């Protein structure tokens, strides 16, 4: 198993190199002059040039790139221009907020989409099938920021069920002691149930927004892949052997149908990471997405590049997990790997 992981990681290396190069080029192309920014508004031209030399920005691009890679290798993502803080520390403190939100959204959507897809596939042309089709098409058509706003309007403004969409916790609560960084888990670990409730209340709407957004591709893929598996020869064999409908659908069809669904999950996760940026903006969520947006608007390149790199690394890790999961489900892949 270890060698499989190693091989997979090795295959991800060229991709990561590509990511680093692209990130470097993108951030250097950002408008604005960091040297002028650091030197301050009153600085003379000479002072700006001095700062530029300090930052190494007067060197040709390849030299800058080597320096940049060197910094990366030492875990140095630079400092933010606007806050002055090291980017790495800021990302580290904000990442759990995004991760908690994204994961909850994904779990929520999987727990709705997969059963829905299965039901639709086992009864094609039925009401469930039509509902599945409408829900998924509508879900994928909703702009994620728009869903968020509608949810806020309905559940906060009209019904008053949800708290104000302002961050991870109501101002009256203070955050639990950091263990995992996930408020839901940390509050339970600390035994503070009211805190748990408060964190959950804040989390429900944004997570639901993400779930609605990611419902469609998962349900669609589940349905399509279940349909094709249910029509396959081995399912017919299972039926002809008198296995119960449950065994046929779950043990035989579903496990096979999961393979393409797992692949889709990787893509959905990528979508979610992107959608996160928008959702965090709508709900004033202090995650890495909103951090990156603020930095982008300010042409603050260190946080942007840190953010993009973090996202890419997370995505590579996720794909690794998916590949391994795939191997667990499908023996054919295991032999190949």
């Amino acid at each position, binding site marked *: 198993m270890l*060698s499989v992981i190693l091989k997979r990681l090795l295959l991800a290396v060229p991709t990561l190199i590509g990511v680093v190069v692209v990130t470097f080029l993108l951030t250097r192309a950002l408008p604005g002059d960091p040297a002028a920014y650091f030197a301050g508004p009153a600085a003379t031209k000479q002072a700006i040039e001095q700062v530029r030399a300090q930052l190494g920005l007067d060197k040709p691009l390849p030299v800058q790139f080597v320096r940049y890679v060197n910094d990366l290798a030492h875990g140095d993502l630079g400092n933010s221009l606007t806050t002055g803080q090291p980017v790495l520390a800021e990302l580290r403190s904000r990442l759990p907020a995004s991760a908690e939100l994204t994961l909850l959204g994904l779990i929520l959507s999987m727990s709705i989409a997969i059963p829905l897809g299965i039901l639709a596939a086992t009864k094609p042309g039925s009401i469930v099938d039509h509902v599945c089709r409408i829900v998924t098409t509508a879900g994928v058509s909703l702009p994620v920021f728009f869903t968020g706003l509608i949810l806020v309007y309905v559940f906060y403004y009209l019904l008053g069920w949800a708290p104000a969409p302002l961050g991870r916790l109501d101002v009256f609560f203070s955050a639990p002691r950091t263990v995992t960084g996930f408020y839901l888990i940390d509050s339970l670990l600390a035994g503070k149930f009211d805190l748990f409730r408060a964190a959950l209340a804040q989390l429900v709407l944004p997570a639901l927004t993400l779930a609605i957004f990611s419902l469609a591709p998962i349900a669609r893929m589940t349905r399509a892949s279940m349909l094709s598996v249910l029509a396959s020869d081995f399912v017919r*064999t299972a039926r002809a052997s008198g296995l119960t409908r449950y065994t046929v659908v779950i043990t035989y069809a579903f496990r096979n149908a999961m393979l393409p669904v797992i692949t889709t999950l990787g893509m959905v996760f990528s979508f979610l990471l992107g959608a996160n940026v928008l959702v965090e903006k709508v709900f004033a969520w202090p995650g890495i997405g909103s951090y990156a947006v603020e930095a982008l608007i300010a042409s603050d390149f260190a946080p942007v590049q840190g953010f993009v790199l973090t996202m890419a690394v997370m995505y590579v890790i996720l794909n690794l997990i998916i590949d391994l999961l795939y191997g667990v489900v499908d023996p054919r892949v295991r032999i190949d790997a």
Partner: protein
Amino acid sequence: MVAVALLDIKDLTVEFHTRRGIVKAVQHVNISIGKGETLGIVGESGSGKSVTSYAVMRILDRAGSIAEGSVTFSGIDLRAAPEEQVRTMRGREMSMIFQSPRLALNPIRKVGHQIEDVLKQHAQADSAQLTNKAIEMLDHVKIARSRERYHAYPFELSGGMCQRVVIALALACRPQLLIADAPTTGLDVTTQKAVMDLVTELTRERGLSTILITHDLGLAATYCDNIVVMEKGRVIESATSTKIFKKPSHAYTRKLMQATPRPGSTLRGLLPEGEAPPVPQKIQMVPREQKPLLEVTKLVKEFPRKGLQASLSRLLGPKPAPQPENFRAVDGISFKINRGESVGLVGESGCGKSTTSMMVMRLIDKSEGAIMFDGEDIGDIAPREFAHTPFRRRIQMVFQDPTDSLNPRYTAARAIADPLLRMGGIKGAAAIRGRCEELAQQVGLPTDLLDRFPHQLSGGQKARVGIARSIALKPDLIVLDEPTAALDVSVQAVVLNLLQDLKDSLGMSYLFVSHDLNVVRLLCDRVIVMKTGQIVEQGPTEQVLFEPQAQYTRDLLAAIPHPPA
């Protein structure tokens, strides 16, 4: 017939709801089978033979339903019985084995567990014995090292082995009726024989009733007591095997029987009486030249074993893999084809016969050896370049699958015109159209079908389009890659005759690649038998087929079903 039938199908009609309205796949069918009897249901594709069996098992898909009639299984009305009752009967009272065995097994579940699922379902063993019972079943179907194979996944087993597992599944709960739906389609003859012998042995032993569904009348007659012949959803004849073979009463049965190539049949004899076209004028061959048209010497094709994986494991693995880097699909074969001669290349799947034909066609590179065509070495011309050499028009091919070999977006005329446009030297739309019509007439394709797309043509018609395309440039050599394997026997009979007539009238040479010795015998002057990349025997057809020298040839011949004469 036996007084009390185990299975009694009366007046069965099965309908399918399609977009063209209701289609009756099976109409007023009466079939009855007694305890311990074996019954063959024979018919060509679309005859409704499989649908009948699905109706019996009540596993028709959503669009299909039993519209009329009754199915009674040992006194139980299967049509009226609730689904739950029928479900418990499946696998325990009646079970089924299918064609394409590899697809019939769950690809990601160990075969042992799949057998256990069935045992558990029908409470045939308590959980402590499950594993032992499953292994015992694998022993029954003669799978060696059963304890080890219990943990195998279907993709790790050969096709024949998978079919044994499917049989084990079907017989695990000791049913009374076994329905075998074309269980040997896609298997090699020797495997086919082994599988059929196994089924016979196990069903006799257990006193099972068996229904064998097949398109192969010879196979049915060899293994069954009684035979039912179906055509277009109806039963047209039903009698004992010997009677059907001696005196078929229905015209369709006679046609089917004739069309099935057997030792002793002739090409013209495959066609129904009165339908045989006149023998064409055989063109006078120019006095035979000394040099052969095609001469292949010590031809080798090696394929690398999985590229990336090998290099990766070299990089990471503790030791390089001990197995050889390359796999030899074709291992130093030599043969000749003379002008006007037709040579059969025979062997079971994986013997390298298709690889050989692809190399001769210059569609893939050779690894070693020489390919001389009309005295010139064409083996060193890269496949990509070969299309631009004058040799291309002289070597053509007819493909195995007529559907796959036609571009779905081209009409028949466009497909036939393709070689003419590139290399025909004919200019002008009218001239090309004229030549297409001429070719269509030559292969017996009605010219009004020329403007149809492949999906609007029948299998036989598509095969004709493919043949017309291959002769469009008047080639010297045509490679026929199992040209009739995807066709029904009656269509096969017509196509084989057509090929023979074309060869005689145009004076071409054939390299006929096939797994079917009976077909090869009809069309070929000489036969080459291949096994694992090497030639085991070659010689004149009569000599190879009637006085085989190699043991392997003898095995192949023995495996062909021998119906009671």
